[in-house]
């Protein structure tokens, strides 16, 4: 056993991180928000060029992919990243053009009390994942209403009133595997949110002074941030374990439970870290300007994707 990143894994992750820092820095994220948050096709193709959508089709595993998605979460990259990656497939593509970024593919699971689709106006194709199978739908044929004020300004959403059946791509087995992979990749994005908010809070705690000292010198602030780090590291272990399991290098634990654990931990930790990051920033944390709120909102969005932490905690218990 060696549950630590190897050199290749590390360099892949560093590569994605520096690509994002150059191509989609926070200044670009904020600018994107002001221009309506439609998926930027140039950026999308650039993401495809570094392999974000085709990693597994190109022979890499879930482990490398999760490491890449951790960076996407950290960078607050927007768009249907997980959906397009899943559409690019592993051995064969589910949707042609997803892997090279020429087509932007979204995903929806019909849900209660409402069915909501992210980024609908930017989509070329839509995967509908139901218990009994996966269907390909023309996004233009979905009857829906765009929401005027989405919680996350970078994630436009539409409320669905009618979803056509579409063309069936696979049965219950495909549906289950997309859900499972989607959960792990979403957890990786959530882990990225945790790590980014720790960096933000740490930078602020070192620089912000009150009572003649950096606020990071107050034990109360140290403890808040130590709690963030603790949750993030436990989450990291859970997310990496899930990815490694999906690559067939797991131990004898039940894969379904390992995957659920990742989504439970990642959902709760991302929300915790982001809200604590706001708290560390004091009044600044409540402003639009400071990125802490962007991460909190993204954490809210990610928690609802592929089942929220309550849902999977209950499922975990049911399987005991």
């Amino acid at each position: 056993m060696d549950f630590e990143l190897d050199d290749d894994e590390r360099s892949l992750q560093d590569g994605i991180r520096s690509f994002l820092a150059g191509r989609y820095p926070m200044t670009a994220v904020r600018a994107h928000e002001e221009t309506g948050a439609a998926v930027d096709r140039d950026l999308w193709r650039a993401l495809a060029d570094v392999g974000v959508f085709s990693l597994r089709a190109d022979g890499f595993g879930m482990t490398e992919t999760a490491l890449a998605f951790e960076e996407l979460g950290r960078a607050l990259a927007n768009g249907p990243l997980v959906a397009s990656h899943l559409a690019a497939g592993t051995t064969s593509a589910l949707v042609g053009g997803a892997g090279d970024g020429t087509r932007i593919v979204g995903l929806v699971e019909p849900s209660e009390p409402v069915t909501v689709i992210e980024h609908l106006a930017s989509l070329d194709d839509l995967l509908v994942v139901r218990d009994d199978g996966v269907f390909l739908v023309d996004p233009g044929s979905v009857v829906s209403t765009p929401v005027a004020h989405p919680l996350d300004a970078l994630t436009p959403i539409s409320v669905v009133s009618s979803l056509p059946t579409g063309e069936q791509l696979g049965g219950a087995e495909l549906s289950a595997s997309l859900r499972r992979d989607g959960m792990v990749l979403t957890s990786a994005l959530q882990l990225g949110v945790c790590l980014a908010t720790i960096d933000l809070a740490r930078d602020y705690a070192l620089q912000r002074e009150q009572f003649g000292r950096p606020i990071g010198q107050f034990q109360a602030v140290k403890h808040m941030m130590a709690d963030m780090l603790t949750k993030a590291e436990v989450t990291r272990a859970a997310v990496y374990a899930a990815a490694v399991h999906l690559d067939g290098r797991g131990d004898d634990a039940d894969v379904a439970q390992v995957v659920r654990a990742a989504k439970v931990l990642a959902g709760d930790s991302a929300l915790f870290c982001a809200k604590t990051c706001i708290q560390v920033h004091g009044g600044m944390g409540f402003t639009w300007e400071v990125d802490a709120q962007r991460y909190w909102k993204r954490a809210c969005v990610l928690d609802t994707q592929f089942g929220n932490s309550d849902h999977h905690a209950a499922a975990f218990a049911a399987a005991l």
Partner: protein
Amino acid sequence: MDLQFTAEEDAFRYELRAWLGTAIASMPVQPQRDDWTARRRYDAAWQRMLFDAGYAGINWPREFGGRGATPTEHLIFLEETERARAPYVGQNFVGLLHAGPTLIAEATPDQKAFHLPGILTGEHIWCQGFSEPSAGSDLASLSCRAMRDGDDYVINGQKIWTSFGHTADYCEMLVRTDSDVPKHRGISWLIVPMGLPGMDVRPLRTMEGSTEFCEVFFDEVRVPVANRVGAENDGWRVTMVTLSFERGTAFISEMLQSMELARDLAELAKRITRNGATAWDDAGLRRDIGRICAELDALWALTKRNVSQAQRTGVVGPGGNVFKLAYAELRQRLGDLAMHLLDRASLSVDDIGDLPSGEHVHGRIHALSLGIAAGTSQVQRNIIAERILGLPKDR
């Protein structure tokens, strides 16, 4: 100890309830959340109705135009107005809860005669210019400077987080009048009319995208020395009077609203189905709602203790800090629970059909500010540990 109301208190309640029934029906529809000018008009109209009916400044002494109600009657007032879903104090908040009471305690007869009626009738909106970019939790380190020049102070510096700064007529403002003494001893409290030459008010966008608060910049702004309340350099003491009022009653209305929201959540859970069962069939969710409702009821009981103490001693005791800390945390849990229940519907800040996402998502975001505004939760813990438990300071 006795939780029962006296016959007089009951009479006060029923008379108020009857009045609210007719008064609220005559109010116009509520303006949009971010239309601050319309909201000002709306808040002022409600304040005027309260004034005409003799309910303005409910707890202010009669000699200053208030109703002179006891703290218990004040509590009944907050309970009944919330129950009737009456408009909130809104932009009259600072005037009625901070500036007015401070003026009553510390201002000259002329200052009182001029300013108190405007607050009571809703004609004048006040804002609070205390915090600065470098002086938040450490408010006493504020550096916005006021230099004496003849009969004027000349102000240079900046304030931040000034709620309603863009609609207000007056600002209760703390300025530095002496930099050569320990920080608490060189502060003065001024009445500053908004819109003076040299003042620049810039709305600051909150995480909700709204412009609830502002930054206010001062460049050689002249304010008459006659606008000072209390002695020069005695502003910190004057301020402490105000802050204790804030912690006393400021959050009661919204806590009562949270009690209703928590009960509404139970109803919502009965309507939302997933996998063939209602959300309410989930024992875990029922327990969470039950626990939150129980804790809110306990905070309401704590409020009654705090009010009783204020009635006997005239000041808000440590219960105020306990309430603020406990409520801020509880309100966040209530918000989290609502978001989880709404699940995908919580991704909209507006209602989706008959799903009340708007109220719950706004409430959740607002809850994030409760642990920050009016003294952060960390500062509340410091106060509780040091002033109540007597533990040594680490600053």
